[in-house]
């Protein structure tokens, strides 16, 4: 039995905050039919979203998809035109931001420049007129949590970007929110610091068992940190699920492309049998596991083959393919741990990613054969 969701007296590092199997998790945030319009544009179409207690949920999408708007609606800094917002069962739709038990870590550094680090962190608690000693205990605990002990007396202007965001995080956490909202807090930081903070955020989430709602446009970041990813586009939720689920089974071309799989193409269903589809992809014949609901024979479907699903084998001159498709390498990008090839096959160009390993990096112009497992072909509804 966990103690997630209870207000924190100090900040204890409890154990892993995963609910025991079979226990009912409470719903931390429930959005129902939330809509938002900005003058003539529709920012959010009516959408529903449920976040469970203790979850780390990420809203992922390109700029302008509405993810930040949605987050700010949860925070109370924007009002929805329709729909309701509830936090742990209480309807907070009509409550302004200062009366909601949630806190937001902003994208830009928004520390109060006229206060020290400690005063910034103490801001929330000090509003509630806690005793001075309690407040300073909280501040110290928060600073420990974000790994900045001793920074209390520093001036805000002296901090680096990474340090400032840590203090912003500490400030939000010290306020004992029931849900922590984070609006792309790491996007302005260097890669190394970003990676570091991602790991620390995940760690803090685990230690506190606090519900996190995170917003980002960086799919790697989303996938690596979240329990659940909600992919958004144009004010709508495209797909929601665990990172593995979304990656293995993207349900729309948008989601596929956004997650980096650009081998998206259309095919006609030739035959349906035994849970498999025979497909005609133009210059290509393939098999794929049949999705539910079953598409009809003769219908058009959208197919995705993930770049990492391929096996690449160079062909010697004149040799023919033992695998499925023959193509030619038209672009090579060596990233370090991975190699990305652009392979021209009949009718299209495919992105192929392989581990570099100790094998030679193939040169441009190499004839290669591509093979893959039929199970890895993903079929989505068209459109």
């Amino acid at each position, binding site marked *: 039995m966990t103690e997630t969701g209870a207000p924190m007296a100090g900040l204890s590092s409890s154990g892993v905050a995963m609910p025991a199997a079979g226990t009912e998790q409470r719903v931390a945030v429930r959005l*129902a*039919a939330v809509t938002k319009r900005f003058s003539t544009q529709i920012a959010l179409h009516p959408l529903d979203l449920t976040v469970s207690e203790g979850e780390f949920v990420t809203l992922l999408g390109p700029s302008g998809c509405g993810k930040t708007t949605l987050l700010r609606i949860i925070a109370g800094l924007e*009002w929805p*035109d*329709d*729909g*309701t917002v509830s936090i742990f069962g209480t309807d907070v*739709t*009509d409550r302004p931001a200062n009366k909601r038990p949630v806190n937001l870590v902003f994208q830009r550094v928004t520390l109060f420049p006229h206060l020290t680090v400690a005063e910034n962190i103490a801001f929330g608690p000090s509003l509630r007129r806690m005793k001075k000693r309690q407040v300073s205990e909280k501040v110290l605990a928060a600073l420990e949590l974000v790994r900045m002990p001793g920074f209390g007396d520093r001036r805000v202007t002296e901090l680096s970007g990474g340090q400032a965001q840590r203090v912003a995080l500490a400030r939000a956490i010290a306020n004992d929110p029931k849900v922590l909202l984070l609006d792309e807090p790491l996007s302005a930081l260097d890669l190394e610091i970003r990676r570091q903070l991602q790991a620390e955020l995940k760690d803090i989430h685990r230690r506190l068992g606090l519900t996190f709602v995170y917003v980002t446009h960086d799919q790697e970041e989303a996938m690596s940190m979240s329990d659940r990813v909600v992919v958004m586009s144009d004010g709508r939720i495209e797909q929601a699920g665990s990172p593995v689920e979304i990656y293995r089974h993207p349900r729309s071309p948008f989601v596929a492309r956004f997650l980096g799989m650009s081998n998206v193409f259309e095919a006609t269903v030739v035959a349906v049998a035994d849970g498999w589809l025979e497909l005609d992809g133009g210059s290509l014949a393939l098999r794929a596991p049949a999705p539910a609901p079953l598409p009809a024979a003769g219908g058009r479907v959208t197919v995705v083959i993930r770049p990492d699903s391929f096996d690449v084998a160079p062909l010697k001159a004149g040799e023919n393919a033992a695998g499925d498709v023959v193509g030619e390498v038209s672009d090579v990008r060596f990233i370090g741990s991975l190699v990305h090839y652009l392979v021209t096959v009949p009718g299209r160009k495919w992105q192929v990613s392989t581990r570099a390993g100790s094998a030679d990096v193939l040169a441009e112009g190499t004839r290669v054969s591509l093979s893959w497992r039929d199970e890895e072909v993903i079929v989505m509804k068209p459109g």
Partner: protein
Amino acid sequence: MGIGQGVLTATRRQQTPAPARRRWALLLLLPLGVAISLGFVVPLALLFVKSFETSLGYGQVSGHLTFSSYVTALTSPLYRTVAVNAFEIGGIGTVLTLVLSFPLAYFIRFRLRRGQHTVLLLIMISLFAGYIVKIYAWATILGTYGVINTALQDIGLIRHPLSVLLFSKIAVLIVVTYLSIPVSTLILVGAMQNVDRSLLENARDLGAGGLRAVTSVLVPLSMTGIVASLAYGFVVISGDYITPQLVGGTTGQMIGVPISDQFLSVGDQPLGSALSFLMLAVFVIVYLVLTRLERFKGV
């Protein structure tokens, strides 16, 4: 969630209702409105009315309204001379001020890093050393036994002191330009703050030589500051009625002097008012021309 309920909740909560916001704003502006109307609009209106009254001398007027003051103002050769003087010195002075302060402003904004503040403060100090005092100091410098004359004589360039330096149009021009440079510099620096340093570097990178980069990039982008400096300078210089009295002599008189005289000693206030409003009319024309200039060259 029914549609009806949605509509109800939507109307119930608004961020801060727009009408209440406007009401707050108007309330805040009330004291200002009172101050400006009483202290500025009403006096100006009354002055305008005064310009149509008939003068009875010694500050007295009759209720009879007439255009005669304006006629006198426009036809008298005396007033014409000093008016032309004023606008001439105003025009040349403000352009000269702009030309002199622009490089200084550029230097402060783009070439100084840590020193920016000190130099700006120094300029502000020079501003507040006392208006009369500064004119007086120039009278000392330009005078027959002043710095310039004694220096030139000592070097041997001239044998007799130049009397044209003081009590002349040139003297007035020098002094008013001197008085305007600090303010002009501050205005220009302010306008330049909004110009990104990298824009100039970019221009240089694309091939524009130093001066070319400045004229083709900086000037258009700081046009608001340039126009402000020109407008402000022209108004302040043309309307100066002290400098001509102290260093103008007979040739350097400007329109401000007779205007102030009417209200101090002579007592033909309608004439003074008429002259003032004619001067303001010229200012309006100059403003219009300058704003046209801004749109022509500017962003």
